[in-house]
């Protein structure tokens, strides 16, 4: 049975400072309780897409100029982040942005901003349950924690808000392979146990396609390919350009990757 679509992006264009067009007609849809991953190289527009959803384009002087973003039947394009977060859409920013001069626990408490009058002790326990390594660091200033701990912290901080739709921007950035594995395992668990819908932006296509149900590939501000993860993983182009495996299943030497130029554009 097909789940209901919770987020529908229809042909949006995003322009920064009234002149720089970053997205040129992106459409995608996200079903409830699913993990959807958004792949693509640097500058493809993945982060901008997330920011268009979460409303964080606004402080960067960006705007959705065309198209619509419908969340749960409500158009949210160009709404303020205060409104959008209160609908249950929380973005975890790229590059781990902790509050450095707040302790881990205070960081987590900021996650309750959209319902700050309610008690939060239970949620703290829930976050510590997913990220046990944060417990012993509770009273430490976030500025002194390691990269892996910080990634867990910013994800935990977002969980404190009880998100219905969680936007994760490159959670694997700059982390050791084992930590990346751990983080992805937790993402899959959160999706399964909390029923949180997740949009996952990643460079690490291999890991992302392992836990995602569906995937989109972006290039130059457009969606160039989409499909369920298992199909995308088998797709020869994705294999070659994102998974680093040649069509024959063997790694190619760097010289052969010249074909990258030849086949870079799908459209």
């Amino acid at each position, binding site marked *: 049975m097909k789940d209901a679509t919770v987020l529908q992006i229809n042909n949006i264009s995003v322009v920064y400072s009234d002149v720089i067009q970053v997205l040129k007609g992106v459409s995608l849809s996200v079903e409830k309780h699913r993990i959807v991953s958004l792949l693509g190289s640097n500058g493809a527009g993945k982060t901008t897409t997330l920011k268009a959803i979460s409303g*964080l384009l606004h402080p960067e002087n960006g705007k959705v100029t065309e198209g619509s973003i419908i969340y749960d039947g409500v158009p949210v394009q160009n709404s303020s*982040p205060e409104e959008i*977060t209160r609908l249950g859409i929380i973005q975890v920013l790229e590059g781990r*942005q*902790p509050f450095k*001069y707040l302790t881990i626990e205070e960081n987590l408490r900021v*996650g309750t*901003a959209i319902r700050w009058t309610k008690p939060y002790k239970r949620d703290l326990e829930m976050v510590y349950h997913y990220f046990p390594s944060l417990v012993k660091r509770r009273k430490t200033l976030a*500025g002194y924690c390691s*990269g892996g701990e910080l990634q867990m912290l910013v994800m935990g901080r977002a969980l404190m808000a009880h998100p219905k739709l969680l936007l994760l921007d490159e959670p694997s950035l700059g982390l050791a392979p084992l930590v990346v594995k751990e983080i992805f395992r937790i993402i899959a668990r959160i999706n399964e146990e909390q029923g949180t819908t997740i949009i996952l932006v990643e460079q690490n296509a291999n890991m992302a396609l392992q836990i995602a149900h569906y995937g989109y590939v972006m290039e130059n501000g457009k969606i160039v390919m989409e499909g369920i993860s298992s199909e995308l993983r088998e797709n020869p182009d994705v294999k070659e350009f994102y998974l680093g495996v040649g069509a024959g299943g063997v790694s190619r030497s760097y010289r052969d990757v010249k074909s990258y130029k030849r086949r870079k554009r799908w459209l």
Partner: protein
Amino acid sequence: MDFFFHLLINGLSIGLLYGLSAMGFVMIFKSSSVLNFAHGELMAIGAFLFLVLVSWAHVPIPVAFLITLVGSFVIGFAVERVFLRPLIGEHLIFVIMLTVGLASMFKGLLLFIFGGNLYIYPDFLPSSLGITINTLVIPPVYVASSMTGIIFLVLFGLFFKFSSQGIFMRSVADNQTASLSLGVHVRRVFALSWAIAALVAAMSGIVLGIINGTNVHEITSIGLKVFPVVILGGLDSIGGAIIGGIIIGLLETFTAGYISPALRDVIPYIILVFILLIKPYGLFGLVEIERV
């Protein structure tokens, strides 16, 4: 020796007041990076609001105190809402120039209403508040001013450490984009920081009024002392503002007592220059945590 202790107590209580008032200044700077040049005027507004309530309307002192607290909070909130919010997103220099304009406007309004005269509050502090140790007599005003300073500093310390709103305010000061992404109402935080700044400014304005009497020129020029205080303490440190306030207060009174009252207003700036030569970010200024 008595003279020394006398100066010490005077310096400490004046210093606590400077610290309290500087705390408001630092809060606005921390949350929105705006230097508020109208700080002295906010102090004067509080002092005169209290004067009007006590001397002209004859409201009982505790009630007048409460009304001034709430009133200045509302005034701070309104100032942010009316004058500063339209400028969010503009260059900081415009916003800072706006506060210079606000300072002139408020000062002009106060002078228009009250003139440049010196007003004295009726003497309402019970003389039993004074403390006598052997031959050392601490007058009630200084006891009251120290108590006000300490109470408010402790209250706000607790507010920032434990309350949700306090933590949200610190999060905005720390990383504005990240707090936006979690749904912190950043504009509300700005408004709240102005409201609290106006409130603590009013408190220190009232106590200064009790000590020296209220005069528009006098209080606004004392308001300018927040600059040496916060630069000494480090522009973005609330603890630094308090300690900077105490240091400046002590320096002033000791200079006036031992050297010459004429040097009173100059010495703090001279010492300030030397401290900044050694610690350019101020005593407690933020040294960026690099480990990320």
